[in-house]
C-alpha cells in the first residue's frame, strides 16, 4: 500500500513568477491522476512547527527566513543565502516551506507507525538547504527533518538522491551520523551546481563510508545511469540494511531539463523507480518515502512524477495522455505537452562521447566500492 501526502498549501512555496520552481508541476500530476481515475485519498499534513525546523537549522537562520518571509527588515540577508538570484525573498515563503516540510515529516511518521510501507509525498525534496544557508531554491531541509524524526526513533535510515544535483544539504546534516547512509547520484560537480559530491566525500568519524557520492559525466544516458545505480545502490543497501529509505526523486536528470546535462528519458525514470522499489523491498523492509525535487522542464517533470505515482500504486501506464487534459494544461502553461508518458525515441541526437562517458561511469562503481571496502566489514 502506498500512502499519498499532499497539501494545497504547498503552493505557498512560491519564489515568484517565472521562477523555475513552479507549483504547476505537482498540480498537473494530481489533475492527470484524477483524469485517469487513479487519484487516491491524500492525507493532508500539518505545517511543520518552528521546533521541528530547528532540529535541522540554526536559530539565527530560521529567524531570518521567518522574518524576511513576513516582510520584516532583516540584516545580513546574504549571509544566509537569502535575497539572492536563486532564493529571492518572497512573502509567505517560510510558511510554504514549513507546509512542505510538514508533509515529509508526516511521511516519516506514517512509516514509523507502520501505517503504510510506501509513502509518496507530492512535494518536498529541498536537498540544498544547509544548516544556516538557503541555496538552490531551497529554504528548509524537509528531507533531513524527516530522516531525523526516524533516527530519533532508533531507526537506521538510507537516503537516496536521484536529483541531477548533489544532495549537499542532506549529506552535510548527517556527515558524521552513523545511523544514516546517504547516496547521491548526480552530474559531476566539476560542471554543475553545487560543485560538491565527489567520490572522496565519504563521511566523517562514525559516519565514515556511509556517505556515497556518484558524480556522473555530463550527457550520461539511461543505460549507463541504471548500470551505476544498480552497481552502487544495491550493494550499499544490502550491506547497510536500513529500516527505511528516503528517496529524493528529482526529475531534473531528464534530457530536456534546462538546468543540467544528463540525458534520461521518462522510460529510464520508470526503470529507475522500479529498480529502487525492488532494492527497497529486498533489503530495506520494503519501507520507502519518496519526495519530489528538482525538475524544471514542466512537461517532463509532470510526466515523470505521474509515472512514479502510477508505479508506486501499481497502475498500468496508459499509452496516451488524455487529449482534453493536454489541451487544458497546454493553455495554462503555454507549452506543448507530449502525447505519451513515454518520450518519443530517439529522444535526442546521438552523443558523440557516449563510449567514453559510459566507460568513465562504469569506473565510478569500482572507485566508490574500493573507497568503502575497508570499512564495510
Amino acid at each position: 500500500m502506498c500512502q499519498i501526502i499532499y497539501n494545497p498549501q504547498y503552493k505557498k512555496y512560491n519564489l515568484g513568477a517565472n521562477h523555475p520552481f513552479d507549483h504547476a508541476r505537482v498540480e498537473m500530476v494530481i489533475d492527470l491522476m484524477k483524469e485517469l481515475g487513479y487519484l487516491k485519498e491524500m492525507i493532508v499534513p500539518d505545517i511543520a512547527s518552528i521546533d521541528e525546523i530547528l532540529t535541522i537549522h540554526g536559530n539565527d537562520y530560521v529567524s531570518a527566513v521567518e522574518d524576511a518571509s513576513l516582510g520584516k527588515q532583516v540584516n545580513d540577508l546574504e549571509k544566509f543565502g537569502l535575497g539572492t538570484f536563486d532564493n529571492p525573498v518572497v512573502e509567505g515563503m517560510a510558511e510554504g516551506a514549513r507546509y512542505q516540510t510538514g508533509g515529509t515529516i508526516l511521511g516519516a511518521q506514517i512509516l514509523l507507525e507502520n501505517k503504510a510501507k510506501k509513502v509518496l509525498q507530492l512535494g518536498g525534496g529541498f536537498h540544498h538547504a544547509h544548516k544556516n544557508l538557503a541555496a538552490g531554491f531551497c529554504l528548509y531541509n524537509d528531507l533531513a527533518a524527516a530522516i531525523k524524526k526516524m533516527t530519533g526513533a532508533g531507526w537506521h535510515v538510507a537516503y537516496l538522491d536521484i536529483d541531477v544535483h548533489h544532495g549537499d544539504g542532506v549529506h552535510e546534516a548527517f556527515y558524521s551520523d552513523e545511523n544514516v547512509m546517504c547516496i547521491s547520484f548526480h552530474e559531476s560537480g566539476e560542471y554543475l551546481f553545487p560543485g560538491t559530491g565527489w567520490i572522496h566525500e565519504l563521511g566523517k568519524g562514525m559516519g565514515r563510508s556511509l556517505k556515497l557520492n556518484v558524480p556522473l559525466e555530463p550527457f550520461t544516458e539511461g543505460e549507463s545511469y541504471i548500470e551505476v545505480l544498480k552497481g552502487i545502490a544495491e550493494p550499499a543497501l544490502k550491506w547497510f540494511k536500513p529500516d527505511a529509505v528516503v528517496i529524493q526523486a528529482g526529475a531534473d536528470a531528464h534530457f530536456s531539463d534546462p538546468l543540467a546535462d544528463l540525458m534520461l528519458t521518462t522510460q529510464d525514470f520508470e526503470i529507475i523507480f522500479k529498480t529502487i522499489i525492488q532494492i527497497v523491498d529486498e533489503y530495506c523492509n520494503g519501507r520507502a518515502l519518496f519526495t519530489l525535487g528538482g525538475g524544471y522542464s514542466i512537461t517532463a517533470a509532470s510526466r515523470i512524477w505521474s509515472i512514479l505515482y502510477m508505479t508506486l500504486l501499481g497502475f498500468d501506464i496508459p499509452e496516451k495522455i488524455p487529449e482534453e487534459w493536454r489541451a487544458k494544461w497546454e493553455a495554462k502553461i503555454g507549452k506543448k505537452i507530449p502525447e505519451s508518458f513515454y518520450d518519443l525515441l530517439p529522444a535526442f541526437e546521438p552523443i558523440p562521447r557516449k563510449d567514453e562517458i559510459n566507460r568513465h561511469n562504469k569506473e565510478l562503481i569500482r572507485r566508490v566500492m574500493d573507497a568503502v571496502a575497508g570499512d564495510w566489514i
Partner: protein
Amino acid sequence: MLIREVMKTDLTIISPETKLNDAYALMLGRKIRHLPVVEDENLIGVVTDRDLRLATSKLSEQPFDPEIQVRKIMKYPVRTAHPSDPIELATRLMRELKIGCMPVLEESKLVGMVTTSDLLDALLLLTGVHQPSGRLDIRLPNRSGELARLASLLAGHKINIHSILTYPDNERNVRLVLRIDTIEIKFIAQEICNAGFQVIWPPHIACVK
C-alpha cells in the same frame, strides 16, 4: 596570496645539539618532516626526516650513530622565504631546488615554515568549492574593461562571484573559470552569451545575435 597567509607559525625548533634519534622521535610524534635548527636565535640549518633516515641507514657507506648531534648532518646554508613573498615565488624556488620546505625569516628572525603541503592547501583554496555554486567557463578578450562588464552583468542579477580562476588562452584571449552562487547556470550563460561573451561551459548555448 602571500607566504604569511599559508605558512605555519606554531613551530617545533631544535638546537644543533639535539641527537638524531631525539629529532626523529620529535618528527614522528608531531607528524612533521622538517625541523629548523636554531642557535642563539639564529636559524643555522634544517634537518628533514629524509636526512635522518639516509644518515642512519644501514645501507649507507658510513652510517651515523643515532646518538650524534644533528649539527653533523643538517643542511646549511638554508634558502629562506619572506612573509611578504608571493607564494608562487616560494613554489618556484622549492621546485628548482627540489626541497620540501622553506623557513620564513623576517628581520633575520624565524617566524614560520612553509612546506609543500601548505602550498597544496593554497592550491585547494584557490581552486576549490567552498560554497554551493555553479561553474562558468568563459573566453574573454584580453583587454581592459571586459571582466568589469562581465562582473556587472552578474551583479545586475544579484549573483555573487565566489571565485575566479584565469589563465592565458591565446594571444588575444584569456580563459576565465568562475564559480557563482546560482543553480541556474544555463540561464545566466545565455545572458552572458547574448552580451557578446564566448561561453565554453555550459555547452550548446545558442546566442541571440
